């Protein structure tokens, strides 16, 4: 009973602290929003196009890009600006329309359309695939027009128009994609990734930071004064732990509710999710108590606590999916409770 009273006082102190409330309530929601938006799988690829003087053929290809539902096209005035945007990662892929595209095609030559994308970058490769398909579709019409002009009647321009109108009606060799392994062992992109990872990250981080309040209370001699009364040390520890557990549980519940309602995150089986969330709140409470016990000054708790929390979060897959790190790092990551 006394433990509950101690817990109630501790919780009241935390709730009155507006900074603590910011970290418990506001910050996790903002982070879910930012990380979720940054990690979200885009429905369209961002493509930058620079025209170095390609003429009519270049304009037609740009129009074909713009008509593709997979691509969001931005035009760039210079090659340097396009390069900078791709290098910064602002674009998934950059397309360079070479000068004299019209002349080259008219002479029967092959036009090399430059595509800037990194081979090891999945979204850039997927974007390059989408861009290549549009280029191939446009090129197919040119090939058809050239072929028909060489081996049949009509000018190149007439046959180009003919090929364009025929293309949607000629049965295509297709590509069917089948998923052999439909069971996800990695988190999906977007808010479904950011909400659970930020729950794990922030509940732990806030609990570690909250250890500073134990140190401050200890420095003020409050615990000693409490033990002068009929209160055992175990009761104080139980009360503090209960307070930390309650706060961690409240924060986790808030993230679950906001994630589910505002961002449409699926948390899976309710019972299993509840058990997991409660268990994680217990881990948070333990981390807070450990921080308050191990560190001697609030400054130590504020300096080492966040560092340890961020490091464990990184190792455990809160900052990036463990699927993208080496198998050794994945195994090491699973030594942390976060993973």
């Amino acid at each position, binding site marked *: 009973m006394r433990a509950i009273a101690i817990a109630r006082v501790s919780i009241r102190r935390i709730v009155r602290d507006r900074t603590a409330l910011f970290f418990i309530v506001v910050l996790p929601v903002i982070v879910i929003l930012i990380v979720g938006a940054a990690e979200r799988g885009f429905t369209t690829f961002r493509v930058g196009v620079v025209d170095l003087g390609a003429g009519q053929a270049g304009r037609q290809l740009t129009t074909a890009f713009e008509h593709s539902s997979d691509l969001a096209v931005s035009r760039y005035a210079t090659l340097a600006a396009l390069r900078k945007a791709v290098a*910064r990662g602002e674009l998934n892929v950059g397309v360079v329309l070479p000068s004299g595209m019209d002349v080259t095609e008219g002479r029967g030559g092959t036009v090399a359309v430059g595509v800037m994308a990194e081979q090891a970058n999945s979204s850039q490769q997927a974007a390059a695939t989408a861009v290549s398909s549009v280029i191939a579709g446009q090129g197919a019409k040119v*090939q*058809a027009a050239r072929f028909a002009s060489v081996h049949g009647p009509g000018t190149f321009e007439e046959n180009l128009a003919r090929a364009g109108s025929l293309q949607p009606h000629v049965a295509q060799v297709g590509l069917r994609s089948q998923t052999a392994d439909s069971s996800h062992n990695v988190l999906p992109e977007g808010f479904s990734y950011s909400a659970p990872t930020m729950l794990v990250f922030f509940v732990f981080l806030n609990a570690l930071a909250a250890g500073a309040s134990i140190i401050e209370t200890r420095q003020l001699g409050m615990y000693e004064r409490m033990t002068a009364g009929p209160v055992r040390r175990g009761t104080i520890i139980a009360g503090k732990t209960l307070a930390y557990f309650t706060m961690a549980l409240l924060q986790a519940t808030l993230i679950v509710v906001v994630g589910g309602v505002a961002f449409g995150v699926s948390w899976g089986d309710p019972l299993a999710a509840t058990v997991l969330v409660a268990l994680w709140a217990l881990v948070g409470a333990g981390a807070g108590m450990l921080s308050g016990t191990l560190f001697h000054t609030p400054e130590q708790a504020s300096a080492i606590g966040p560092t340890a929390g961020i490091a464990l979060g990184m190792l455990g897959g809160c900052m990036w999916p463990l699927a993208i790190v080496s198998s050794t790092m994945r195994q090491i990551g699973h030594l942390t409770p976060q993973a």
Partner: protein
Amino acid sequence: MRNALVIAHKDLRQRLRDRSAIVLGLVAPLAIAALMSVAFKGSDTFHFTMGVVDVDRGPVAAGLLKALDAPGLRQIVTVKTIASKRSAADAVRAKSVAAALVVPAGFSASIEGGDPLSLVTLTSVNQTVAGDITSSIATSFIAQLNADRLSVATALAAGVPTSQSAHLEALAAGFQIPERAVQRSIGAHKLKTISYYSPGMAIFFLLFTISFTARSFFVDRAQGMIERIRAAPVRPLEILAGKAMSVLVYGVASLGTVAVITSAAFGANWGAPAAAALLGLAMVVAVVCVTALVMCIARTQRQAEGISSIAVFGLALLGGNFIFLSSSPPVMRTVALFTPNGWAMRGFTDLSTIGGGLGTVAEPVLAILAFSVVAGSAAALLARRAVAA
């Protein structure tokens, strides 16, 4: 000026005695950078094994197998022949291949007819890059087949007799699509994870200086230290300048040490030293100004701790120290440019990828200094009130 230097010297000595300053300024960013370096070691290159099932055994399938053996593809893909589609699906599930490409029976024969068959890719939801690249390779191969079919259809539509379609098909096979996507160099270094997050983490922990300095100012004030200093011929602005200078020296030392160690030990690319130093210095100046502003706005130690904590995490999140913001929606990239660290991250990203020198960082440095002027001016206006309170 001398008074400010004395105060700065005293603050620095006090700070260096506190081990938490060393942890935040040096140990933490280095530990996190080391962690990132190890975590992403080997992830800068990508190679996977692709299963190929040739049930067709016709000439078109042979052409596909030949295309898969091209020297350029060998750097990315190792091809493994698998007998059946079912075995290929099992192999994908067992992770012995990352993805598979199936050429169905009768594929070659169907190409010349009116209802061509499709190639099939078998992918795993957990190996999306390999799946994307497999689709990319298949799409490139199919594009030529479809161009040939369109060529024949166009020639027939133009008036060539249908009786010649077999002849046309043979001729079309010798043509090549005259517009090709060719991989072009970005003309910039690849942005390595360690090169982004080394400055990211160094700046993030530098921001903690705001909390520490503001806290120490209010502790000094509570202990009557500020009043005692004011009893001497020291102007309020000199007290603030002294505090600010200690932040400047601490910040430069922290950022510089992290830059040198992460470059030497983990291969982080901070760019040209002079440009990186200028950018780092501008960022430290911004931190000094924000610190001064927090000290002037807050009225109590508790308020100072609250405002600075919110400033630290707010700036770090919006500026992209935690999250690679370049691939986020444009609105978030725009918001980042309202923060000094957002400009610093953009500058360090450009230095690491595009390269160049002082010209590359001119715009970010000017933007950070503009931010500093605004924050610093506001602090100067409020300085008398803060010190007198």
